[in-house]
Protein backbone atom coordinates (compact mmCIF):
# COMPACT_ATOMS: atom_id res chain seq x y z
CA UNK A 1 0.00 0.00 0.00
CA UNK A 2 1.26 3.45 -0.88
CA UNK A 3 1.91 5.91 1.94
CA UNK A 4 -0.65 8.72 2.22
CA UNK A 5 0.80 12.02 0.99
CA UNK A 6 1.96 14.51 3.61
CA UNK A 7 -0.88 16.64 4.98
CA UNK A 8 1.34 19.69 4.56
CA UNK A 9 4.63 19.87 2.74
CA UNK A 10 6.60 23.07 2.19
CA UNK A 11 9.95 23.61 0.52
CA UNK A 12 11.83 26.90 0.90
CA UNK A 13 8.71 28.99 1.52
CA UNK A 14 9.52 32.70 1.69
CA UNK A 15 7.23 35.63 2.51
CA UNK A 16 8.34 39.21 2.84
CA UNK A 17 6.29 42.25 3.92
CA UNK A 18 8.31 45.23 2.76
CA UNK A 19 11.54 45.13 4.75
CA UNK A 20 10.31 42.39 7.08
CA UNK A 21 11.14 38.81 6.21
CA UNK A 22 8.18 37.06 7.87
CA UNK A 23 8.87 33.53 6.61
CA UNK A 24 12.41 32.69 5.64
CA UNK A 25 12.86 29.49 3.63
CA UNK A 26 10.43 27.35 5.56
CA UNK A 27 10.77 23.58 5.16
CA UNK A 28 8.01 21.72 6.91
CA UNK A 29 6.31 18.36 6.71
CA UNK A 30 3.14 17.47 8.57
CA UNK A 31 2.43 13.78 8.01
CA UNK A 32 -1.04 12.44 7.31
CA UNK A 33 -2.94 11.93 10.58
CA UNK A 34 -0.31 13.76 12.62
CA UNK A 35 -0.83 16.45 15.25
CA UNK A 36 2.10 18.74 14.55
CA UNK A 37 3.00 21.74 16.67
CA UNK A 38 4.60 24.92 15.41
CA UNK A 39 6.03 26.53 18.51
CA UNK A 40 7.44 30.01 18.54
CA UNK A 41 7.23 33.45 20.09
CA UNK A 42 5.04 36.31 18.94
CA UNK A 43 6.16 37.52 15.52
CA UNK A 44 8.02 34.31 14.69
CA UNK A 45 5.98 33.80 11.51
CA UNK A 46 3.43 31.24 12.72
CA UNK A 47 0.31 33.09 11.53
CA UNK A 48 1.95 34.11 8.26
CA UNK A 49 2.81 30.46 7.67
CA UNK A 50 -0.83 29.48 8.20
CA UNK A 51 -2.00 32.30 5.94
CA UNK A 52 0.35 31.07 3.20
CA UNK A 53 -0.77 27.47 3.55
CA UNK A 54 -4.48 28.32 3.55
CA UNK A 55 -4.50 30.68 0.57
CA UNK A 56 -4.90 33.91 2.52
CA UNK A 57 -1.45 35.05 1.42
CA UNK A 58 0.82 34.33 -1.51
CA UNK A 59 4.40 33.13 -1.04
CA UNK A 60 7.19 35.14 -2.67
CA UNK A 61 9.21 31.95 -3.21
CA UNK A 62 9.08 28.25 -2.49
CA UNK A 63 6.61 25.45 -3.01
CA UNK A 64 3.91 23.84 -0.93
CA UNK A 65 1.31 21.14 -1.16
CA UNK A 66 -1.71 20.15 0.92
CA UNK A 67 -2.61 16.44 1.05
CA UNK A 68 -0.58 15.90 -2.10
CA UNK A 69 -2.22 18.78 -4.02
CA UNK A 70 0.34 21.23 -5.37
CA UNK A 71 -0.88 24.66 -4.22
CA UNK A 72 2.16 26.73 -5.19
CA UNK A 73 0.59 28.38 -8.23
CA UNK A 74 -3.01 28.25 -7.04
CA UNK A 75 -2.96 28.79 -3.28
CA UNK A 76 -6.75 28.38 -2.94
CA UNK A 77 -6.91 25.03 -4.72
CA UNK A 78 -7.03 22.93 -1.52
CA UNK A 79 -9.82 24.88 0.18
CA UNK A 80 -12.15 21.89 0.03
CA UNK A 81 -9.68 19.81 2.07
CA UNK A 82 -8.78 22.24 4.81
CA UNK A 83 -10.33 23.70 7.93
CA UNK A 84 -8.93 26.82 9.54
CA UNK A 85 -9.31 28.19 13.03
CA UNK A 86 -7.70 31.63 13.00
CA UNK A 87 -5.97 33.25 15.97
CA UNK A 88 -8.99 35.55 16.47
CA UNK A 89 -12.57 34.34 16.65
CA UNK A 90 -13.97 35.76 13.43
CA UNK A 91 -17.53 34.54 13.17
CA UNK A 92 -20.48 36.85 12.52
CA UNK A 93 -21.51 38.77 15.65
CA UNK A 94 -25.12 39.32 14.52
CA UNK A 95 -25.76 35.63 13.85
CA UNK A 96 -26.58 33.06 16.51
CA UNK A 97 -24.22 30.19 17.27
CA UNK A 98 -26.43 27.82 15.30
CA UNK A 99 -26.74 30.18 12.33
CA UNK A 100 -23.00 30.78 12.26
CA UNK A 101 -22.32 27.05 12.01
CA UNK A 102 -25.04 26.54 9.40
CA UNK A 103 -23.65 29.42 7.36
CA UNK A 104 -20.10 28.03 7.49
CA UNK A 105 -21.42 24.62 6.45
CA UNK A 106 -23.23 26.18 3.49
CA UNK A 107 -19.97 27.74 2.28
CA UNK A 108 -18.66 24.20 1.89
CA UNK A 109 -21.66 23.04 -0.11
CA UNK A 110 -23.29 20.97 2.64
CA UNK A 111 -27.03 20.52 1.97
CA UNK A 112 -29.48 22.41 4.21
CA UNK A 113 -30.79 19.44 6.23
CA UNK A 114 -27.30 18.08 6.82
CA UNK A 115 -26.13 21.53 7.96
CA UNK A 116 -28.69 21.66 10.75
CA UNK A 117 -27.81 18.14 11.93
CA UNK A 118 -24.06 18.85 11.97
CA UNK A 119 -24.50 22.22 13.69
CA UNK A 120 -26.69 20.70 16.41
CA UNK A 121 -24.22 17.85 16.98
CA UNK A 122 -21.21 20.15 17.20
CA UNK A 123 -22.95 22.60 19.52
CA UNK A 124 -23.71 19.71 21.82
CA UNK A 125 -20.18 18.24 21.65
CA UNK A 126 -18.63 21.65 22.35
CA UNK A 127 -20.93 22.29 25.32
CA UNK A 128 -22.70 25.15 23.55
CA UNK A 129 -26.15 23.62 23.06
CA UNK A 130 -27.79 26.03 25.49
CA UNK A 131 -26.23 29.03 23.75
CA UNK A 132 -27.18 27.87 20.25
CA UNK A 133 -29.89 30.51 19.86
CA UNK A 134 -27.82 33.37 21.29
CA UNK A 135 -25.98 35.86 19.12
CA UNK A 136 -22.23 35.26 18.78
CA UNK A 137 -21.58 38.83 19.97
CA UNK A 138 -22.89 37.86 23.42
CA UNK A 139 -20.63 34.81 23.84
CA UNK A 140 -17.73 34.75 26.32
CA UNK A 141 -14.19 34.52 24.95
CA UNK A 142 -13.99 30.80 25.65
CA UNK A 143 -17.36 30.14 24.02
CA UNK A 144 -16.33 32.19 20.98
CA UNK A 145 -13.17 30.15 20.66
CA UNK A 146 -15.07 26.86 20.87
CA UNK A 147 -17.61 27.96 18.26
CA UNK A 148 -14.79 29.13 15.97
CA UNK A 149 -13.22 25.68 16.21
CA UNK A 150 -16.60 24.06 15.54
CA UNK A 151 -16.98 26.28 12.46
CA UNK A 152 -13.55 25.18 11.29
CA UNK A 153 -14.44 21.49 11.38
CA UNK A 154 -18.13 21.44 10.39
CA UNK A 155 -17.23 20.31 6.86
CA UNK A 156 -15.01 17.46 8.19
CA UNK A 157 -11.69 18.72 6.78
CA UNK A 158 -8.86 16.26 6.38
CA UNK A 159 -6.26 18.90 7.32
CA UNK A 160 -6.95 21.34 10.13
CA UNK A 161 -4.97 24.51 10.85
CA UNK A 162 -5.30 25.74 14.41
CA UNK A 163 -3.71 29.12 15.07
CA UNK A 164 -3.17 29.72 18.80
CA UNK A 165 -6.42 27.98 19.76
CA UNK A 166 -6.22 28.60 23.51
CA UNK A 167 -4.67 32.07 23.70
CA UNK A 168 -6.41 34.51 26.00
CA UNK A 169 -9.14 32.25 27.33
CA UNK A 170 -9.92 30.88 30.79
CA UNK A 171 -8.25 27.73 32.10
CA UNK A 172 -11.40 25.58 32.01
CA UNK A 173 -12.21 26.48 28.39
CA UNK A 174 -8.57 25.96 27.37
CA UNK A 175 -8.62 22.51 28.93
CA UNK A 176 -11.85 21.64 27.15
CA UNK A 177 -10.45 22.88 23.83
CA UNK A 178 -7.29 20.78 24.27
CA UNK A 179 -9.49 17.76 24.88
CA UNK A 180 -11.46 18.53 21.71
CA UNK A 181 -8.24 18.86 19.71
CA UNK A 182 -6.98 15.53 21.03
CA UNK A 183 -10.32 13.93 20.07
CA UNK A 184 -10.11 15.35 16.55
CA UNK A 185 -6.63 13.96 16.18
CA UNK A 186 -7.75 10.56 17.42
CA UNK A 187 -10.52 10.65 14.82
CA UNK A 188 -7.85 10.87 12.11
CA UNK A 189 -7.66 14.60 11.28
CA UNK A 190 -4.20 15.89 10.40
CA UNK A 191 -3.59 18.99 12.49
CA UNK A 192 -1.07 21.80 12.28
CA UNK A 193 -1.26 23.66 15.56
CA UNK A 194 0.60 26.88 16.23
CA UNK A 195 1.09 27.89 19.81
CA UNK A 196 3.35 29.83 22.10
CA UNK A 197 2.31 27.66 25.06
CA UNK A 198 5.13 25.19 25.43
CA UNK A 199 3.17 22.89 27.73
CA UNK A 200 0.32 22.80 25.19
CA UNK A 201 2.65 21.63 22.43
CA UNK A 202 4.24 19.10 24.78
CA UNK A 203 0.91 17.70 25.91
CA UNK A 204 -0.83 17.51 22.53
CA UNK A 205 1.65 17.15 19.71
CA UNK A 206 3.47 14.14 18.33
CA UNK A 207 6.13 16.27 16.66
CA UNK A 208 7.07 19.87 17.27
CA UNK A 209 8.99 22.45 15.25
CA UNK A 210 10.55 25.53 16.88
CA UNK A 211 10.11 28.58 14.68
CA UNK A 212 12.06 31.78 15.26
CA UNK A 213 12.23 34.79 12.89
CA UNK A 214 10.47 32.87 10.14
CA UNK A 215 12.86 29.90 10.22
CA UNK A 216 12.43 26.41 11.61
CA UNK A 217 15.35 25.91 13.99
CA UNK A 218 14.51 22.37 15.09
CA UNK A 219 11.90 19.68 14.38
CA UNK A 220 11.48 16.40 16.22
CA UNK A 221 9.16 14.27 18.30
CA UNK A 222 8.46 15.60 21.78
CA UNK A 223 10.18 12.52 23.25
CA UNK A 224 13.33 13.06 21.17
CA UNK A 225 13.43 16.76 22.00
CA UNK A 226 13.16 16.00 25.71
CA UNK A 227 15.81 13.26 25.63
CA UNK A 228 18.84 15.50 26.46
CA UNK A 229 17.12 17.05 29.47
CA UNK A 230 15.33 13.96 30.74
CA UNK A 231 18.18 13.00 33.13
CA UNK A 232 18.60 16.53 34.46
CA UNK A 233 17.66 17.09 38.10
CA UNK A 234 15.68 20.26 38.74
CA UNK A 235 14.64 21.72 42.03
CA UNK A 236 12.75 24.94 42.67
CA UNK A 237 13.08 26.81 45.95
CA UNK A 238 10.87 29.72 47.02
CA UNK A 239 12.64 31.99 49.51
CA UNK A 240 11.45 34.91 51.63
CA UNK A 241 14.10 37.37 50.43
CA UNK A 242 15.66 38.46 47.16
CA UNK A 243 17.21 35.31 45.68
CA UNK A 244 20.54 37.00 44.82
CA UNK A 245 22.21 36.34 48.19
CA UNK A 246 20.79 32.82 48.40
CA UNK A 247 22.13 31.95 44.95
CA UNK A 248 25.59 33.16 45.91
CA UNK A 249 25.51 31.11 49.09
CA UNK A 250 24.25 27.94 47.40
CA UNK A 251 26.71 28.22 44.53
CA UNK A 252 29.58 28.30 47.02
CA UNK A 253 28.26 25.38 49.06
CA UNK A 254 27.07 23.15 46.20
CA UNK A 255 29.52 23.67 43.35
CA UNK A 256 28.24 20.71 41.30
CA UNK A 257 24.85 22.37 40.79
CA UNK A 258 23.85 25.50 38.85
CA UNK A 259 21.56 28.02 40.54
CA UNK A 260 19.52 30.66 38.71
CA UNK A 261 16.77 33.11 39.69
CA UNK A 262 13.36 32.33 38.17
CA UNK A 263 11.75 35.52 39.52
CA UNK A 264 11.83 37.76 42.62
CA UNK A 265 11.46 34.87 45.05
CA UNK A 266 12.23 31.61 43.24
CA UNK A 267 15.54 29.89 42.62
CA UNK A 268 16.08 27.02 40.23
CA UNK A 269 18.76 24.44 41.05
CA UNK A 270 19.96 22.26 38.18
CA UNK A 271 22.30 19.31 38.28
CA UNK A 272 23.10 16.09 36.49
CA UNK A 273 23.25 14.20 39.81
CA UNK A 274 20.29 13.89 42.22
CA UNK A 275 19.93 17.01 44.39
CA UNK A 276 19.17 16.41 48.08
CA UNK A 277 16.57 18.89 49.35
CA UNK A 278 17.44 18.78 53.06
CA UNK A 279 21.04 20.08 52.89
CA UNK A 280 20.03 22.89 50.51
CA UNK A 281 17.23 24.09 52.77
CA UNK A 282 19.41 23.76 55.90
CA UNK A 283 22.24 25.74 54.29
CA UNK A 284 19.88 28.61 53.56
CA UNK A 285 18.09 28.57 56.91
CA UNK A 286 21.38 28.57 58.80
CA UNK A 287 22.10 31.90 57.12
CA UNK A 288 18.66 33.25 58.11
CA UNK A 289 17.06 32.80 54.70
CA UNK A 290 13.62 31.27 55.14
CA UNK A 291 12.62 28.65 52.58
CA UNK A 292 8.87 28.82 51.94
CA UNK A 293 8.67 25.96 49.46
CA UNK A 294 10.97 23.38 47.86
CA UNK A 295 9.77 21.15 45.04
CA UNK A 296 11.19 18.91 42.35
CA UNK A 297 10.50 20.06 38.78
CA UNK A 298 10.15 17.76 35.79
CA UNK A 299 12.30 18.92 32.85
CA UNK A 300 9.99 20.27 30.14
CA UNK A 301 10.12 21.29 26.53
CA UNK A 302 10.64 24.85 27.80
CA UNK A 303 14.25 23.96 28.71
CA UNK A 304 14.81 22.58 25.23
CA UNK A 305 13.13 25.58 23.60
CA UNK A 306 15.19 28.09 25.57
CA UNK A 307 18.42 26.15 24.96
CA UNK A 308 17.71 25.81 21.22
CA UNK A 309 16.44 29.28 20.45
CA UNK A 310 18.20 31.33 23.11
CA UNK A 311 14.85 33.03 23.82
CA UNK A 312 13.23 33.52 27.21
CA UNK A 313 9.96 31.63 26.94
CA UNK A 314 8.23 33.36 29.88
CA UNK A 315 8.85 36.89 28.67
CA UNK A 316 7.56 36.08 25.19
CA UNK A 317 4.46 34.41 26.56
CA UNK A 318 3.66 37.47 28.65
CA UNK A 319 4.10 39.72 25.63
CA UNK A 320 1.62 37.71 23.59
CA UNK A 321 -1.00 37.61 26.32
CA UNK A 322 -0.96 41.38 26.67
CA UNK A 323 -2.30 41.69 23.13
Amino acid sequence: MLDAPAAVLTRGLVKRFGEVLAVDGLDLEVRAGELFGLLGPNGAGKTTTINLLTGLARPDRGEFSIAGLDCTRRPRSAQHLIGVVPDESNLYPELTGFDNLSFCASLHGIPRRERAARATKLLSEFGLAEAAGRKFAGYSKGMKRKLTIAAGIIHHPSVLFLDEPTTGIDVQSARHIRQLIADLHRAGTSILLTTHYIEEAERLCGRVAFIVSGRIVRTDTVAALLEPVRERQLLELTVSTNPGAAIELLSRAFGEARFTAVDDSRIRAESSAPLPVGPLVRALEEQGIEVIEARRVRPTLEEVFVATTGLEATALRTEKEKK
Partner: protein
Amino acid sequence: MKHWGAFASILAKDMRTYYLKPPNVSWGLVFPLAWTGMFFVRSGANPSELRSLLPGVMTLAVLFGTTSLLAVAITFEKKSRSFERLLLAPVPLSLLMFAKTAGAILFGVLNAFVPVLLAAFFINLSGTNWPALLAGVILTAVSSAFLGLLVAVSVAEVFEAQTISNFFRFPMVFLCGLFFPLERLPAWLRPLSYALPPTYGADIMHQAIGRPGFLPLWLELLILIAFCLVLFVASLRTINRRWIA
Protein backbone atom coordinates in the same frame (compact mmCIF):
# COMPACT_ATOMS: atom_id res chain seq x y z
CA MET B 1 -24.66 23.62 -7.90
CA LYS B 2 -22.86 23.33 -4.54
CA HIS B 3 -21.46 26.83 -5.05
CA TRP B 4 -24.91 28.31 -5.55
CA GLY B 5 -25.89 27.12 -2.06
CA ALA B 6 -23.02 29.24 -0.74
CA PHE B 7 -24.15 32.12 -2.97
CA ALA B 8 -27.70 31.97 -1.56
CA SER B 9 -26.42 31.78 2.03
CA ILE B 10 -24.15 34.80 1.61
CA LEU B 11 -26.96 36.79 0.01
CA ALA B 12 -29.47 35.85 2.73
CA LYS B 13 -26.98 36.62 5.52
CA ASP B 14 -26.08 40.02 4.07
CA MET B 15 -29.75 40.97 3.65
CA ARG B 16 -30.47 39.97 7.24
CA THR B 17 -27.36 41.54 8.67
CA TYR B 18 -26.73 44.75 6.77
CA TYR B 19 -29.98 46.13 5.30
CA LEU B 20 -30.82 47.83 8.58
CA LYS B 21 -27.30 48.79 9.73
CA PRO B 22 -27.27 52.52 10.66
CA PRO B 23 -24.72 53.65 8.00
CA ASN B 24 -26.82 51.95 5.34
CA VAL B 25 -30.12 53.31 6.64
CA SER B 26 -28.81 56.89 6.69
CA TRP B 27 -26.98 56.93 3.33
CA GLY B 28 -28.82 54.20 1.47
CA LEU B 29 -32.44 54.80 2.53
CA VAL B 30 -33.05 58.13 4.26
CA PHE B 31 -30.83 60.24 2.01
CA PRO B 32 -32.32 59.22 -1.38
CA LEU B 33 -35.82 59.26 0.11
CA ALA B 34 -35.28 62.82 1.38
CA TRP B 35 -34.10 63.91 -2.09
CA THR B 36 -37.09 62.23 -3.67
CA GLY B 37 -39.43 64.01 -1.24
CA MET B 38 -37.68 67.33 -1.84
CA PHE B 39 -38.00 67.09 -5.63
CA PHE B 40 -41.61 65.93 -5.47
CA VAL B 41 -42.56 68.83 -3.20
CA ARG B 42 -40.67 71.30 -5.40
CA SER B 43 -42.49 70.03 -8.49
CA GLY B 44 -45.80 70.88 -6.82
CA ALA B 45 -47.15 67.52 -8.03
CA ASN B 46 -46.98 68.85 -11.61
CA PRO B 47 -47.32 65.66 -13.70
CA SER B 48 -44.95 66.72 -16.46
CA GLU B 49 -42.25 67.83 -14.02
CA LEU B 50 -42.69 64.72 -11.87
CA ARG B 51 -42.24 62.53 -14.95
CA SER B 52 -39.01 64.32 -15.87
CA LEU B 53 -37.69 63.98 -12.30
CA LEU B 54 -38.50 60.30 -11.89
CA PRO B 55 -35.46 58.76 -13.72
CA GLY B 56 -33.13 61.07 -11.78
CA VAL B 57 -34.43 60.17 -8.33
CA MET B 58 -34.54 56.49 -9.28
CA THR B 59 -30.87 56.60 -10.34
CA LEU B 60 -30.02 58.49 -7.15
CA ALA B 61 -31.79 55.84 -5.05
CA VAL B 62 -29.93 53.04 -6.84
CA LEU B 63 -26.56 54.76 -6.63
CA PHE B 64 -26.73 55.58 -2.92
CA GLY B 65 -28.47 52.33 -2.00
CA THR B 66 -25.94 50.00 -3.62
CA THR B 67 -22.76 51.86 -2.72
CA SER B 68 -23.84 52.38 0.91
CA LEU B 69 -24.69 48.74 1.45
CA LEU B 70 -21.38 47.56 0.02
CA ALA B 71 -19.44 50.08 2.07
CA VAL B 72 -20.99 48.42 5.12
CA ALA B 73 -21.08 44.76 4.06
CA ILE B 74 -17.48 44.59 2.83
CA THR B 75 -15.61 46.86 5.23
CA PHE B 76 -17.33 45.55 8.39
CA GLU B 77 -16.38 42.00 7.49
CA LYS B 78 -12.89 42.93 6.38
CA LYS B 79 -12.28 44.69 9.69
CA SER B 80 -13.68 41.88 11.84
CA ARG B 81 -11.79 39.35 9.69
CA SER B 82 -15.00 37.40 9.04
CA PHE B 83 -14.36 38.05 5.34
CA GLU B 84 -11.52 35.51 5.67
CA ARG B 85 -14.23 32.86 6.18
CA LEU B 86 -15.40 33.53 2.63
CA LEU B 87 -11.88 33.49 1.22
CA LEU B 88 -11.29 30.11 2.91
CA ALA B 89 -14.39 28.59 1.33
CA PRO B 90 -13.97 26.35 -1.72
CA VAL B 91 -15.90 28.81 -3.88
CA PRO B 92 -14.40 30.77 -6.82
CA LEU B 93 -13.48 34.31 -5.83
CA SER B 94 -15.61 35.79 -8.62
CA LEU B 95 -18.71 33.99 -7.34
CA LEU B 96 -17.95 35.04 -3.75
CA MET B 97 -17.74 38.67 -4.77
CA PHE B 98 -20.83 38.41 -6.91
CA ALA B 99 -22.64 36.97 -3.88
CA LYS B 100 -21.40 39.88 -1.75
CA THR B 101 -22.67 42.39 -4.32
CA ALA B 102 -25.97 40.59 -4.96
CA GLY B 103 -27.50 41.92 -1.72
CA ALA B 104 -26.53 45.47 -2.69
CA ILE B 105 -27.87 45.05 -6.23
CA LEU B 106 -31.20 43.80 -4.90
CA PHE B 107 -31.30 46.62 -2.35
CA GLY B 108 -30.60 49.17 -5.10
CA VAL B 109 -33.32 47.75 -7.36
CA LEU B 110 -35.91 47.79 -4.56
CA ASN B 111 -34.81 51.31 -3.61
CA ALA B 112 -35.33 52.48 -7.18
CA PHE B 113 -38.98 51.51 -7.15
CA VAL B 114 -39.80 53.51 -4.00
CA PRO B 115 -39.95 56.79 -6.04
CA VAL B 116 -41.95 54.95 -8.72
CA LEU B 117 -44.50 53.88 -6.12
CA LEU B 118 -44.73 57.43 -4.76
CA ALA B 119 -45.01 58.89 -8.27
CA ALA B 120 -47.80 56.46 -9.15
CA PHE B 121 -50.10 58.42 -6.82
CA PHE B 122 -49.63 61.61 -8.86
CA ILE B 123 -48.94 60.65 -12.47
CA ASN B 124 -50.17 58.16 -15.01
CA LEU B 125 -47.38 55.66 -15.63
CA SER B 126 -49.15 53.77 -18.39
CA GLY B 127 -47.12 53.81 -21.58
CA THR B 128 -43.93 53.17 -19.61
CA ASN B 129 -41.61 50.66 -21.27
CA TRP B 130 -41.32 48.50 -18.14
CA PRO B 131 -38.81 45.95 -19.48
CA ALA B 132 -36.49 48.78 -20.53
CA LEU B 133 -37.02 50.56 -17.20
CA LEU B 134 -36.25 47.36 -15.29
CA ALA B 135 -33.17 46.66 -17.45
CA GLY B 136 -31.96 50.22 -16.86
CA VAL B 137 -32.49 49.94 -13.10
CA ILE B 138 -30.79 46.52 -12.88
CA LEU B 139 -27.77 47.52 -14.95
CA THR B 140 -27.42 50.80 -13.04
CA ALA B 141 -27.62 48.82 -9.80
CA VAL B 142 -25.01 46.28 -10.98
CA SER B 143 -22.57 48.95 -12.23
CA SER B 144 -23.05 51.07 -9.07
CA ALA B 145 -22.60 48.00 -6.88
CA PHE B 146 -19.34 47.11 -8.62
CA LEU B 147 -18.21 50.72 -8.29
CA GLY B 148 -19.05 50.50 -4.57
CA LEU B 149 -17.20 47.19 -4.39
CA LEU B 150 -14.10 48.72 -5.91
CA VAL B 151 -14.16 51.48 -3.28
CA ALA B 152 -14.98 49.12 -0.40
CA VAL B 153 -12.15 46.69 -1.16
CA SER B 154 -9.67 49.55 -1.41
CA VAL B 155 -10.23 50.99 2.09
CA ALA B 156 -10.23 49.73 5.67
CA GLU B 157 -13.08 51.51 7.48
CA VAL B 158 -16.81 52.03 6.82
CA PHE B 159 -16.49 55.82 7.18
CA GLU B 160 -13.63 55.83 4.64
CA ALA B 161 -15.77 53.90 2.18
CA GLN B 162 -18.74 56.26 2.68
CA THR B 163 -16.53 59.36 2.42
CA ILE B 164 -14.70 58.21 -0.70
CA SER B 165 -18.02 57.12 -2.21
CA ASN B 166 -19.35 60.64 -1.66
CA PHE B 167 -16.48 62.04 -3.72
CA PHE B 168 -18.00 60.42 -6.79
CA ARG B 169 -21.67 60.06 -5.76
CA PHE B 170 -22.38 63.77 -5.33
CA PRO B 171 -20.66 64.92 -8.55
CA MET B 172 -22.53 62.15 -10.38
CA VAL B 173 -25.84 63.68 -9.30
CA PHE B 174 -24.94 66.75 -11.38
CA LEU B 175 -22.77 65.21 -14.09
CA CYS B 176 -24.93 62.27 -15.17
CA GLY B 177 -28.01 64.07 -16.44
CA LEU B 178 -30.11 62.98 -13.48
CA PHE B 179 -32.02 66.23 -13.04
CA PHE B 180 -31.14 68.30 -16.11
CA PRO B 181 -30.10 67.29 -19.64
CA LEU B 182 -26.42 66.79 -20.46
CA GLU B 183 -26.67 69.53 -23.14
CA ARG B 184 -26.95 72.06 -20.33
CA LEU B 185 -23.55 71.05 -18.96
CA PRO B 186 -20.49 73.05 -20.14
CA ALA B 187 -18.98 71.29 -23.16
CA TRP B 188 -15.68 70.63 -21.35
CA LEU B 189 -17.51 68.65 -18.61
CA ARG B 190 -19.46 66.41 -20.97
CA PRO B 191 -16.65 63.89 -21.67
CA LEU B 192 -16.56 63.26 -17.92
CA SER B 193 -20.32 62.59 -17.98
CA TYR B 194 -19.89 60.03 -20.73
CA ALA B 195 -17.29 58.22 -18.63
CA LEU B 196 -19.76 57.65 -15.76
CA PRO B 197 -22.13 54.64 -15.78
CA PRO B 198 -25.20 56.36 -14.22
CA THR B 199 -25.31 58.71 -17.26
CA TYR B 200 -26.41 55.77 -19.39
CA GLY B 201 -28.61 54.26 -16.68
CA ALA B 202 -30.53 57.51 -16.20
CA ASP B 203 -30.86 57.95 -19.97
CA ILE B 204 -32.29 54.42 -20.37
CA MET B 205 -34.86 55.26 -17.68
CA HIS B 206 -35.69 58.59 -19.39
CA GLN B 207 -36.32 56.71 -22.63
CA ALA B 208 -38.35 54.04 -20.82
CA ILE B 209 -40.85 56.64 -19.58
CA GLY B 210 -41.15 58.17 -23.05
CA ARG B 211 -38.64 60.99 -22.90
CA PRO B 212 -35.93 61.50 -25.52
CA GLY B 213 -32.47 59.91 -25.02
CA PHE B 214 -29.05 60.83 -26.39
CA LEU B 215 -28.09 57.30 -27.56
CA PRO B 216 -30.07 54.29 -28.82
CA LEU B 217 -31.37 52.11 -25.99
CA TRP B 218 -29.50 48.98 -27.09
CA LEU B 219 -26.19 50.83 -27.24
CA GLU B 220 -26.65 52.22 -23.73
CA LEU B 221 -27.42 48.74 -22.42
CA LEU B 222 -24.23 47.43 -24.03
CA ILE B 223 -22.17 50.30 -22.60
CA LEU B 224 -23.51 49.61 -19.10
CA ILE B 225 -22.72 45.89 -19.44
CA ALA B 226 -19.17 46.84 -20.45
CA PHE B 227 -18.89 49.14 -17.40
CA CYS B 228 -20.10 46.28 -15.15
CA LEU B 229 -17.47 43.88 -16.51
CA VAL B 230 -14.60 46.35 -16.23
CA LEU B 231 -15.52 47.39 -12.68
CA PHE B 232 -15.98 43.77 -11.54
CA VAL B 233 -12.64 42.66 -12.97
CA ALA B 234 -10.95 45.71 -11.39
CA SER B 235 -12.48 44.81 -7.99
CA LEU B 236 -11.32 41.19 -8.24
CA ARG B 237 -7.83 42.35 -9.11
CA THR B 238 -7.82 44.73 -6.16
CA ILE B 239 -8.85 41.91 -3.81
CA ASN B 240 -6.20 39.62 -5.23
CA ARG B 241 -3.55 42.30 -4.93
CA ARG B 242 -4.47 43.74 -1.54
CA TRP B 243 -6.22 40.98 0.38
CA ILE B 244 -4.47 37.84 -0.79
CA ALA B 245 -1.06 39.46 -0.81
